[in-house]
């Protein structure tokens, strides 16, 4: 009698423990982690977009060419802010690609603008320019770090929902779908690649 009740208690405890091992907790935890990391990525992209107005002041001393690039950058910024990937869209590969394309377009524009400033010694020594350059570099670096952290969280989440035993809970209880990692569109990726056999 007594043995029976104790064994029953053990069954209940074992059942709850094995349920916990089936991904009841680990799957949502991994998903929330990935979503949090995505929020970091978005925050860093926003930080870069917020830097753009500072460029207007710097460009004032430059020629028409730079004014044109700045207009392009501002337009790219408007497009990039229009594409919004929320935490619920993280499984949507198309939307993610669209977002990445818009962001990299803006990044390329800013890069082009900074490169063309090299012809202006007066701008190069301008305090606003130096501050902008370091902020832009820092933001690009933070974006790279945030994206890497996000991709790592996605990798862990996707591994969790596909491997035993978490995959049981992931499929039966949560109906978990894999998330899409962020793939940065490299500058000029849409242009035809040049044949270059001399690899470094």
């Amino acid at each position, binding site marked *: 009698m007594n043995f029976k*009740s*104790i064994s029953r208690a053990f069954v209940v405890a074992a059942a709850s423990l094995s349920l916990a091992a089936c991904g009841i907790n680990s799957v949502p935890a991994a998903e929330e982690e990935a979503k949090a990391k995505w929020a*970091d990525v978005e925050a860093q992209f926003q930080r870069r977009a917020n830097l753009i107005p500072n460029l207007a002041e710097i460009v004032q001393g430059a020629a028409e060419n730079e004014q044109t690039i700045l207009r392009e950058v501002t337009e790219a910024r408007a497009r990039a802010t229009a594409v919004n990937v929320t935490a619920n869209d993280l499984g949507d590969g198309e939307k993610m690609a669209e977002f990445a394309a818009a962001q990299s377009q803006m990044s390329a524009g800013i890069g082009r603008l900074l490169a063309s400033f090299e012809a202006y010694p007066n701008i190069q020594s301008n305090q606003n320019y130096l*501050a902008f350059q370091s902020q832009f570099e*820092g933001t690009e670096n933070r974006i790279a*770090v945030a994206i890497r952290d996000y991709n790592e969280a996605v990798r862990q989440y996707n591994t969790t929902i596909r491997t035993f035993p978490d995959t049981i809970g992931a499929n039966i209880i949560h109906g978990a779908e894999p998330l899409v990692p962020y793939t940065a569109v490299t500058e000029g990726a849409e242009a035809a690649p040049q044949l270059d056999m001399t690899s470094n």
Partner: protein
Amino acid sequence: MSRVALLFLALAALLAAPLAAQPEFPELTGRVVDNAEIISPEVEAQLTTQLEELESQSQRQLVVVTLPSLQDYEIADYGYQLGREWRLGDVERNDGALLIVAPNEREVRIEVGYGLEGQLTDAYASTIIRNEIVPYFRNGDMEGGIVAGTTAIANHLALPEAEAIRLVTQTSKEANVGSGDGWLVWLLILAPFAFVILVIILASKGGSGGTRYSGSTSSGTSVSTYSSSSSSSWSSGSSFSSSSFSGGGGSFGGGGASGSW
């Protein structure tokens, strides 16, 4: 059996994959880690004292590190990973910082923890590198640049003294509240388990007509084993105080600035 072994191998490979992509990090031997051997012992001692004073005054951890090689990584890429590896700064405030010098690549970087990004901004870190450090390095005076850079960063980090004192008192209060909350959370988590087990045992006892007292004692022992195992795992996570210098658990997100000469 071989299939199980294969599964384990595959899991091990998955776990090992991100580790293989990481650079190698030097050991955190002190507040000055001079692996490129460009700092004399006297200057190293002087810097160590300066950095100790900074931590005792502002609780912020600044470490000077010189590297013989960046292992083909960009200094910004290497820097934040080194900061995370060493876990500089407080776990809550993330207020660690690094001054990294790679003399062979002619690169220098100030790596700033999450929590200090607002105070030691990218633009300010860049100014320190440009105005304080690089002029010395250009003249071949590595020590001079490192001392000037460290002083500039330390002075800046030590600035808001009132704020630092407020933070110290605030965190000590939080630590007390935190430990109390930890027990409360565990109690809340375990209470339903204990209750369910108790109810099941009592119900089975009642149905089979056994004595109530023996039933409640068996449930009592199962509850106590639960709480003791959970409390031990909880307390092991919070023991990280040691006499030698080590990071406090802070993290880095790529803030700071780089320069070359």
